[in-house]
């Protein structure tokens, strides 16, 4: 198991654990369609510690790097 940030750019994985994510954010992500079991892809990461862009179920989202770090994913081989 690794974090979302450790996924290679463009590689797909599926979310396995969101328990470390801040409650409010977790709730928000849930409603945007990001929850355990969803396939997720890291599209790109902004420089200087900036946010990253992820794709989940055809939806592009921007989230902060510190939050992405708390999202655990299962890599697809």
């Amino acid at each position, binding site marked *: 198991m690794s974090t979302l940030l450790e996924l290679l750019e463009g590689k797909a994985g599926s979310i396995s654990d969101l328990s470390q994510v801040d409650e409010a954010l977790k709730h928000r992500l849930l*409603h945007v369609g990001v929850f355990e079991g969803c396939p997720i892809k890291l599209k*790109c990461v902004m420089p200087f510690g900036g*946010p990253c*862009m992820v794709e989940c179920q055809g939806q592009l989202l*921007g*989230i902060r790097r510190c939050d992405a770090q708390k999202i655990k994913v299962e890599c697809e081989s």
Partner: protein
Amino acid sequence: MITALVGNPNTGKTSLFNHLTGSYEYVGNWSGVTVEKKIGRLKEIKGDLIDLPGVYSLYPFSKDESVVIQFFLNETFENIINIVDASQLERNLQLTVQLLEFGSPVIIGLNMIDVAERRGIHINAATLSRKLGLPVVPITARSGKGCHELTQQLTSINGVKGNIPNIQYGDAIELGITKITEILKEKELNLPTRWLALQVLEGNPDARIYIEHWVSKDSVQKIIDFVEREVKEKTSFSSASRLIFEKRRIWIDEVIQDSISTQSEQKKNWTERIDKIVTNRWLGIPIFLFFMFLMFTVTFDWIGTPLSDLLDSFISGPLSNWIDAGLNAVGASSFIQDLVTDGIVAGVGGVLVFVPQIFVLFLFISLLEDSGYMARAALVMDRVLEKVGLNGKAFIPMVIGFGCNVPGVMAARTIEQPKERLLTVLLTPLMSCSARLSIYALFVGAFFDKHQAIVVFSLYVLGIVVALVLAKLFSKVLMKNEPSMFVIELPPYRVPHALTLWRSTWDKGKGFVRKAGTFIFGGSVAIWLLSYFGPGGMGVDLDHSFLAIVGGWFAPLLAPLGFGIWQAGAALITGFLAKEVVVSTMGIIYHTPDSTALQGLLSHYFTPLSAYSFLVFVLLYIPCVATVAAIRNESSSWKWTVFSIGYALVIAYVLAIIVYHGGKLILGI
């Protein structure tokens, strides 16, 4: 008959609203364009349609989202049109379930079918309709296709009882619902109790406050604690809200299973290709800055200024002559003639000549809004804004603020976190709005003819930099630290529709032209009267008029900034009404209807350096009346409103002094 228009963010609700009601409300391609409810009259049948901000769920995260739940709790309506994004069907139906549980008849408008098809998702609307037990009408909100059918369906469902989905939420939740229903029994609530109970158990803060009007806080808390404990002990879910979400998801999967078919992965679409460039690690920020600079070059050097010069020669030439001839023909007194030519033509005309520049600028802003780039820019800027205690989303109000600060301040509603929202509200007025643009245009034409775009660009950048520095300062000193949150949806790019683009440009520009007819007209008359009368009576020498006296009070204060003349003082006071009035006042004071002549005259009173210092002061000194009202509204606090005026005055004064004296040192004057 009242119908509410509800749906996820950026699914085209307002586009549909505009088609169904024939009105024109603000549309754009990002989540959170609509931040308040809007009412319109339906075109084809009798009834009102209410456009609500987009939400993923009735659970509110931000101020604009709570508009929706408040609407459900407190207002009456008959039907719901639920606009659903076909490319995100499963997620959109989470909201639909909550609407259905409310019990009003619902029609689904299925939008963005083309986007879904491109992703290889095909939806059978008829099957979906049968499974959900409600009408599903395929529509294209942008072009208005399907609006007629939608209206037809509306008449057919009116008065019919809604079809509440049969979802069993499991023992813990169901028991909770029963308990809440029990304590609410015999209270005369006009709301469906099962729906309300579910909202409360999901943790919806607004729903909870609502029921606490009827029953004691403790009794509600007890039930919630009980349910949460049960859920944790007896199920594998971490919270009641998560369990409720899951039960709904299972139901939704069941519903859409037969109505949706997905083809394998599609080829790379062009949204991805563009994103590769504009959100590139290294190119993102340079591209953004380049785009902004291009915007100013086109606005000033290429299109705006030449057009504006043409308009100027028309107003000062033929138009003025016609007006003079007309006034002579009707035998108007010399007082009236002076009022019209020196007051109204000089004041209003002086502002109107800048309409071309402002329209070009608005065209660019509309292009940004409609293309889908706005959310990307917010993403690219998040890191910088986070560093100063803001949020990437604050960037959107700021860009809108370049057009007009009032909608900019309101756009801050989409920011979830109260501290970041307040900061954005306070700082958006530092964004240089189009009204200020007319002042810059006047002065750069007079003093920086060769470098217009770069000088104006520097002022915009200055506004942004000051905002960032102050954000850092305010968030450190004035506000306590709260955890920040940033999630932003990046919509697919769209080729902007020529018609949408034009309407959206026109709609913004219209406000500017309208202001010329009202505020600026009235202001010009008042200013001219003040300049015509003095303690010595009528038609006094300008230097002894009331205007000169009032302006003179402020002149000594302005002297350290390099423009200690009463004319500048008078212009700045009137600028509080609307910033363009500064231009009108200058036109009236210097008695020239023609902005070229005015520019020539200005050089007797200002040096290039003091002119720049004046522009810096104008950029920062005080938000206009309308913006102050918006700040009061959004911050709900007089304290913060007064603060926003006060800090702006201080910062403007300090920076203008630095520019003037620093400039003098550097230039060796």
